[in-house]
Structure formats: structure tokens, C-alpha cells
């Protein structure tokens, strides 16, 4: 990653009826203070609450009726 790239702010895209897509260097810390290491550069954070792989999205929003406000 170039110096320029690392200075760019993390970009978060709220996907309609879906997860938060996060691009950029992030650190995720769970409720017990443990770091959850992302295994890919772009990650999808669950926001329907139904995922079996928290904090990451596993596609469950497509079958549990989750809708984001228009």
C-alpha cells in the first residue's frame, strides 16, 4: 500500500438492505477488547443482526426480511 493510499480515509458504504461495506485499513475490536483480524481488504459488517459469523456479513439479510430505510 502506498503512503498516499494509507492516508486516504476509510470508506464505508451502507449497502441498501445489506451490510456496511468497509474499504481501508481498519481494526475491529469485540466487546471483550479482543481484536478481530479481517481476512480480506474489503469487508462487509453485518447490520441486520442475523449473521452466524459476526461481525462479518454472511448474506443472512437476504432471507430474514432486513430492510434499510429508504
Amino acid at each position, binding site marked *: 500500500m502506498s503512503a498516499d493510499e494509507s492516508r486516504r480515509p476509510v470508506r464505508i*458504504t451502507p449497502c*441498501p*438492505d445489506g*451490510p456496511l461495506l468497509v474499504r481501508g485499513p481498519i481494526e475491529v475490536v469485540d466487546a471483550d477488547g479482543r481484536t478481530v483480524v479481517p481476512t480480506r481488504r474489503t*469487508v*462487509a459488517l453485518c447490520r441486520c443482526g442475523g449473521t452466524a459469523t459476526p461481525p462479518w456479513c*454472511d*448474506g443472512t439479510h*437476504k432471507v430474514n426480511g432486513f430492510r434499510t430505510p429508504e
Partner: protein
Amino acid sequence: MTTQLPSPAPVTTGAQSPMPIPTPRGPLSDTLLRVLTWSADPGSLHASVADVLASPSGSWLEHDDVQLALTCMYELHYRGLTGVDDDWEWQPDVLGARAALEQAVEAELRERVAVPDLPEGSSAQQVAAALFALTSADGGPSMSRWIARRADRSQLEELLVHRSVYQLKEADPHTWSVPRLGGAPKVAMMEIQSDEYGAGDPERQHAALFATAMRGLGLDDTYGRYVDHVPAVTLAHPNAMSMFGLHRRLRGAIVGHLAAFEMTSSIPNRLYGNGMRRLGLGQDVTEYFDEHVEADAVHEQIAGRDLAGRLVEQDPALAGDVMWGAAACLALDGWWAQHVLDRWEAGETSLREPLR
């Protein structure tokens, strides 16, 4: 005398060797394989193709001779075939024969797979919404539910054997599209493909994870090892991907295909993983499927909006082929799953010959 250091164990990434020459399934594939190994005149291919296409057939997609011939022709563009000179890739007789077969296959696909409802507009969001609606409405047979709840170990092996035809070169057919795209869609395609190819780690390539899963089930992960075992309906899907990927004209279809593939992956792969765990298989086997649960939940968002959506924004005329490519993905997967599940319901193998 220098001490010879033991060479490190090679990283197995699956799929480096050429495809073994398969067994012909009729006069066309027989002629083709003889041409490629210098025992028949390349010109003889034209008559051979004309004969096959003039014969009555219910479906070219289920025609073993045609689909195997196409598999071999496309393979010339990937890893090649054992003992076959790489120069055959651009040999005019072979390309002409392939074009004639592709015309028949594409005509059948266009007839059997209608273009779904087009997005209401050509904004990226509208295209993504139309693709998500199409893929969530898919009522195809559920292979993943069978695997999760009912499959025995031999059926898991059969599943991986069918899938190995594509998964040992996973992502490659879509990569053909990269130089045909520009701007945002190209960046989105590369963002997905980078993940598919391990994001800098050869052992994390999805094809390599799949090879590990095959070995974990006691299968041979040699590239193309099981082509002889799978029926035409299994070959037809990777063949269609190659056709979409290798034709600039069909760039909308390969993009739509990838979007549908990613959008129908996370939840089925979780069920596949559950089926493997139910039968006591370890992480070496389940890792491939578990990885796809998370990876494809990311990929489907990128593929819907940034790839397919932005492509249609750039060129609204591609909307029809994007949606058609997505529908073709669902249809091809559905026809394959129907074949396999019908055989399993009847207590038979879904393969052309049993594995053991």
C-alpha cells in the same frame, strides 16, 4: 562438494498442470483429439462439426460429444492439454469449428433463458436491485439443502468431482473480461478477482483451497482429473462461462454471470460447510466453503453495484446481456443440480462412471 539443501515442499496451489487428454464421447470429440495430437487433418474438423450439428439433438447443452469438444477447445486458452502443442490455441480450423459450436450453444441458451425484467433505470443501484431481486426469486432445486441434511460421504465426493471442473480454475473465465472493461467496473472486477486469487497469498487462492478440500475427501486434485467422470450438463456451465469471457461482445453476460454467481453463494456455501461438518469432516475440507460465506457476502455487493451497476451506467445498452448472463448462471446451475438430485433421489450415482 556442496551440500544439497532439501528443496522446500512445493506450495500446492492446485491446477498448474495441463488437463489430461479426456476419452472421446463421439465422432466430433474423437476427431478433435486426433487433430490436436497430429493424427488427423485439421480440415476434417469442419465436416465433423457439420455432421454433429445436422444431427437431431434435444439439447446441445446436454450433448456429451459437443460439450466435451468445447471443453477441450476452451482448455487450449487455459492450462492446455497434456501433449498438445500450444500453437493449437489460435489455429484457424479449430477456432472455426468452435465458432460453429458456440453459435448453436448460444442460440439454445438464448431460447431457453429469457432476458429477465430489465432494471427500472440504468443507475448502479437500480441494476443491483434488479440482480438481487432476480437471484433471490430463483426457485431452482436446492443442492445445498440436500448436502446440509441428507448427503452421504460418497455424494459429497461426487459434488466436489462435478465442481472440480470449474473450481480448480476458479475465477479464470471472468478474468478474460478485465481488459474489456474500463474505469469503475474494471476496478470492481479486480477487487473481486484479487480475493479469488488469494490477495497475495498463493495458499489462499480459492482454487487452492478447493484442491485442499478435494484431498481432504481423498480425491485426486490433479487439474482436469475428473472430466471423464462428469456428464455434459456439468461441462456446459464452465463452457458457457468461457464463451461469455472470451467474447468481447458478451462482456455484459460474463459480468451478469459473476454477479449472479456471487449472489447465490454465501448461504449455499454455509449449508455445504454444515453438511461436511455433519459427516465429521475437518477444517481442511470445510475451509473452502466457510471462506466463501464471508468472501461472497462482500463480493455480491461489489458485483451488484460497482461492477454490473457501473457497467450499465457506462453503457445502458448492456443491461439486457447483464441480466441475461445472470439468468443463464441460475439456469445452468439449476439444470446441473436437477440432474444430480434426480440421480441421488433414485439412489444412483450422478457421475458417468462411479468413482470407486
